[in-house]
């Protein structure tokens, strides 16, 4: 039985197997380990990799790339008059990698393990697994990329606890890993899927425009692209040089700008701070203190930036380690993971426990506002997989016979702000005198499969559902979600101050632990009620608003990741911890 590991990247893909006690990367027909994630059609035949990447420029109408970004959506790509979705295009790449592996190893491949970003939601994971169906090969297991990187970082059976900082072109994943006695336990994953190296390019491009009296946003797109490209080049050069000058010629005019590390630090301050916050969040979720953490390991292409390295070493209390092969860490970890999964003799004793990087919730009735269902978390994020959680629920009305069970991903306050995964109906006996109760059980297994069970107490009827692709009702992505929060609070009141408080509660709600969430939920309802009853008493309202905002200040202060002892405090800035 041979398992192939596939690191299916947005721009490049790699394949790996575990042989003779170590991960072995598979070279493609050109003898290279990296195969570009591009697909093209040449004379009715599908070609992938380097050739397809070349054809992307010469024949854009029958080529596609960057399709990983649309995994799990209905977006299709038209190649030579035929429509393909992301999973289909990805399957061509996986197929090519399997063939390369079979040619290289002279063995048949029985199973494929694919690595996915931690922030791939349940739907995107389902879609990735569909690659297996399309190819007729077993794709059962997915592994989170930061987990794979963590496995690669762990060398021997030492006791160590470290943070993996995986900063790629478009996403940032931070995971906290605890290793002991051959157990690699992923404790917390946090991330930002809209923060990456390209944001640094953009910040540099805007600075370039500012220096040359241009407005980036109103430039034509080809000029924008050439500025971005020049800035990206400059960014890469800055890893080895101290000062880089960017000069461009556009419409017979010369544009110049000089970048050095100080400039870069100033213009990307907010991005660097976001990076720091993600680290803080992961560490906070993991429950470790700085003294328990051994190091932070930099992974991913964008981690090579000296400005980021210097910023982090100033901001953190723990030493920072640079891995030699930052780019291929995920694929090496993936290879090791396959060895573990195959129960290979060499690493038979190693056990990896992974976690669920998101919360899974259901919608519950909201007495305050029946149209706006509340969200109740069953599986909190960072639960160790496999996991099952049970909750007892009851019907809303007496005499109700049908219950709608909706499954969501996310921990926003209102169900509709979370990502909808599917719904099902269960039947309960008609009972005019009392509410009917039932147990709702969510089980999320090691293969990223979510099973939803419901057991009606009176009849002992047992329903089991599986979340699959078919149940799509609506798709909500991050940008739409923010708008919906605004809409909700405006519809409730036409009062700015009250709105601000409610919005603030909702914002804080997402960041705090369960106990505080309960409290905030109560606060939210009480506050809404009181504001309604006191509609005419301005003085009392004001006092209540002040009081509530003071409480929120307190809660927020305690949530502030800056106070974590992982970050250098003002007093001990002497740099004694620096690597």
């Amino acid at each position, binding site marked *: 039985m041979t398992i192939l590991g596939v690191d299916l990247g947005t721009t490049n893909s790699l394949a790996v197997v575990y042989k003779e006690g170590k991960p072995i990367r598979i070279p493609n027909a050109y003898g290279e380990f990296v195969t570009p994630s591009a697909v093209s059609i040449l004379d009715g035949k599908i070609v992938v990799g380097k050739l397809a990447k070349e054809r992307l420029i010469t024949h854009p109408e029958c080529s596609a790339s960057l399709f990983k970004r649309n995994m799990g959506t209905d977006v299709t790509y038209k190649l030579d008059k035929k429509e393909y979705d992301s999973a289909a295009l990805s399957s061509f790449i996986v197929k090519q990698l399997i063939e390369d592996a079979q040619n290289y190893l002279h063995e048949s491949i029985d199973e494929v393990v694919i690595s996915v970003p931690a922030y791939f939601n349940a739907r995107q994971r389902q879609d990735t697994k569909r690659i297996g169906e399309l190819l007729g090969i077993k794709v059962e297991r997915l592994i989170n990329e930061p987990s794979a990187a963590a496995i690669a970082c762990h060398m021997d059976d030492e*006791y160590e606890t470290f943070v993996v900082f995986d900063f790629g072109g478009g996403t940032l994943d931070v995971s906290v890993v605890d290793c*002991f*006695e*051959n*157990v690699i336990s992923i404790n917390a994953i946090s991330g930002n899927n809209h923060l990456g190296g390209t944001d640094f390019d953009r910040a540099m491009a805007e600075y370039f425009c500012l220096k040359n009296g241009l407005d980036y946003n109103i430039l034509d797109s080809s000029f924008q692209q050439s500025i971005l490209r020049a800035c990206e080049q400059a960014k890469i050069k800055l890893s080895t040089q101290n000062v880089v000058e960017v000069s461009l010629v556009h419409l017979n005019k010369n544009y110049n700008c000089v970048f050095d590390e100080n400039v870069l630090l100033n213009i990307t301050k907010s991005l660097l701070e976001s990076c720091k916050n993600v680290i803080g969040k992961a560490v*906070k979720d993991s*429950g*470790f*203190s700085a003294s328990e953490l051994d190091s932070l390991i930099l992974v991913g292409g964008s981690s090579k930036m000296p400005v980021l390295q210097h910023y982090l070493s100033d901001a953190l209390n723990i030493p920072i380690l640079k891995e030699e092969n930052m780019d291929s860490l995920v694929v090496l970890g993936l290879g090791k993971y396959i060895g573990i*999964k195959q*129960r290979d003799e060499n690493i038979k*004793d190693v*056990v990896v*426990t992974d976690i669920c990087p998101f919360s899974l919730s259901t919608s519950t009735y909201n007495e305050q506002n029946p149209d706006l269902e509340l969200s109740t978390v069953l599986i909190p994020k960072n639960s*160790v*997989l*496999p*996991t*099952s959680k049970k909750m007892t629920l009851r019907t809303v009305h007496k005499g109700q016979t049908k219950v709608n069970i909706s499954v969501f991903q996310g921990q926003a306050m209102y169900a509709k702000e979370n990502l909808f995964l599917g719904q099902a109906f269960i039947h309960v006996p008609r009972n005019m005198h009392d509410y009917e109760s039932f147990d709702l059980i969510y089980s999320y*297994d*090691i293969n990223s499969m979510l099973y939803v069970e419901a057991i009606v107490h009176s009849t002992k009827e047992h329903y089991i559902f599986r979340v699959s692709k078919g149940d799509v009702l609506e798709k909500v992505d991050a940008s739409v979600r923010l708008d919906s929060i605004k809409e909700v609070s405006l519809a409730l009141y036409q009062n700015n101050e009250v709105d601000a408080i409610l919005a603030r509660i909702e914002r804080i709600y997402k960041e*705090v*632990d369960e*106990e*505080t969430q309960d*409290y905030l939920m*109560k*606060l939210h309802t*009480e506050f809404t009620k*009181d504001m309604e*009853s*006191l509609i005419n008493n301005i*003085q*009392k309202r004001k*006092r*209540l608003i002040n*009081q*509530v905002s003071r*409480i929120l200040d*307190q*809660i927020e202060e*305690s949530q502030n990741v800056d106070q*974590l002892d992982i970050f250098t405090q003002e007093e001990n800035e002497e740099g004694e911890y620096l690597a």
Partner: protein
Amino acid sequence: MNAWEILGIDPTSDKKTIKRAYAKLLKQYHPEENPEEFKQIQAAYQQCLHSDQEIESVSYEQNIESKQDIKTQPISIKEDTIVPPPIPKAETLFVKSEKDVVVYQDILNSIEKSLPKKIRPKEIVQVFTDPKIMPYLEDEFFCRRLEDIFLSRKLKYIKNFRDPIYMYLGKYGMSKLSNVMDYSNVPIYKRPAFVAFIVVSVILLEMILGIV
């Protein structure tokens, strides 16, 4: 079977011991092959690892000793999350209990005694700035009662619309008092002195004309 029994160790706060026991069990019950067992082991492991936080769930007598140990242990991040303050309700925010009203009554009585029959804005401002009274002004109920006391006196009008008293009246929501005292808002023909003057002069005129 409690969590310690599942892990097969005696209750301890030593994380290394717990981790070692957990690791040993995981090799026997690999999550790939024994997912159900793994779930139980994992739950027990979490419970043991954070046993210092859930000490109440274990019986008291057994753990008096370990409880004392725990106090000297460093507090983990999870533990020092804030204890939520009680939710303020509109009703509970303000005085309700009789005891408080009695305290108020004493203060109010002393104010009532000290005030002259005719009061000028200056005296009202004095009441507002009295450090003894100031803390009570935060309460609306107290403000209403104080306003009633002021209203029961003869009030002098405020001549200057920049008088500092307006600041206090606005701050403590004494709109009734401010209306009564507002001099500039009363049209000249509605002021009692003016009305009295007209009435007297009309009567006088009539008398003079009548006599004539």
